[in-house]
């Protein structure tokens, strides 16, 4: 089974995982189940770089060989552009593996948590990158504290 033919949907229970809660201020949890993460693999057919939420459509081939269209919802262009995204960041025809929260009611719809491209490079939400930077500062501060040195200023 090739990557393209495989629709690998892996549901993992995660508690309070925040991976790019697209539209967290738009009642995210009323639409997406933020306690589950799924991964879907397919080929991008469209990427709409718009506000309030960017939208990607992708063709995913399920186990029976049937091609199903999935919709992936991102934060809006206002937010993505702050992380350097453009309308060409994701191109039709690209093969991608997308992880995110599944929609509570709509089949074949999910939020964007992470995208892994065919060449292994990754795209993550802008908020996740900011959180990663804060965590790096915290680790450095903890390391300095454990060594008994005067740490850097806390990440405030």
């Amino acid at each position: 089974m090739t990557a393209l033919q495989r629709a690998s949907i892996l549901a993992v229970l995660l508690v309070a995982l925040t991976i790019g809660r697209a539209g967290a201020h738009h009642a995210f949890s009323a639409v997406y189940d933020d306690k589950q993460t799924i991964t879907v693999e397919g080929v991008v057919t469209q990427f709409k770089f718009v506000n309030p939420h960017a939208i990607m459509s992708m063709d995913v081939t399920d186990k029976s060989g049937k091609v199903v269209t999935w919709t992936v919802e991102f934060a809006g262009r206002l937010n993505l552009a702050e992380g350097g995204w453009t309308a060409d960041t994701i191109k039709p025809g690209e093969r991608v593996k997308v992880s995110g929260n599944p929609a509570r009611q709509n089949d074949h719809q999910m939020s964007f948590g992470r995208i892994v491209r065919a060449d292994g490079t990754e795209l993550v939400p802008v908020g996740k990158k900011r959180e990663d930077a804060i965590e790096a500062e915290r680790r450095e501060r903890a390391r300095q504290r454990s060594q008994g040195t005067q740490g850097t200023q806390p990440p405030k």
Partner: protein
Amino acid sequence: MIQKCVSGLLLLVLAACSSSPPAPKTTAPKQIEGMWSDDPTAVGMLCFFTCTEVAIARLNALLDDPANDARPFPQLRAEADRFARDTYIRPRLTDARLKSYPLDPADDPGLLRCEPWGVARQMFSPHQLEIRRLGEDRVQLRYGEWDARRTVYMDGRRGPEREPPGAMGFSVGHWEGETLVIETSNIAANLTPWRFEHSDQLRTEERFTRADDGTTLWLTATFTDPGSLKEPLVIKKVWKWAPESHITPYEDCQRASGVTKGVSQP
């Protein structure tokens, strides 16, 4: 003769001073004008939408405690938020509001019907805030979220007395040193960012102050609303200087489908 001339001159100066218009109060410090956007620091992430002094103090205490080093930042942020909600916001709500607090976000008209926010939420909206003077008598606040605009009148005019309340209310402003102070009234009842509804008696005072580092803009907003609050609520928000940032059109709002009620945590 000389005494008469001096006295006459003094009288002329006094007369000129008393009849001239007051010194303009609309001179905006350039440092506040321009584009601001999300602050990527820990406190900035806490205040992505709104925050309080209580939440900021709680987050800083959690970050300072080595016992929390292994806990992920989102968990600490959520704890600080929860603490502020329980100890600061909830005790200030009227009994009537407490009965329906917190409202289910699945009922949010912004989500269900793409209805733009009222001023109580818009003033704290994430992403860009652009502050520009419009002539000598107005300041415009333009927000990335919803591409919303607010006009603030700086010429001392009074608000409309017979106009029906509107979503953005009526805003007048003035400068106190380098602080931009905006008072808003005539606001139609709508949702707050804290999941309760304010009444049309809401009045807000926003104070925009640039921090000493020059690249941080703080908003301290005081909400007074006999219809929903027992005492004033003071809310904060922070932006970073972002001259490269742009506000892009808000043109593709899709009504949410598949909304589930009762699943959001209080």
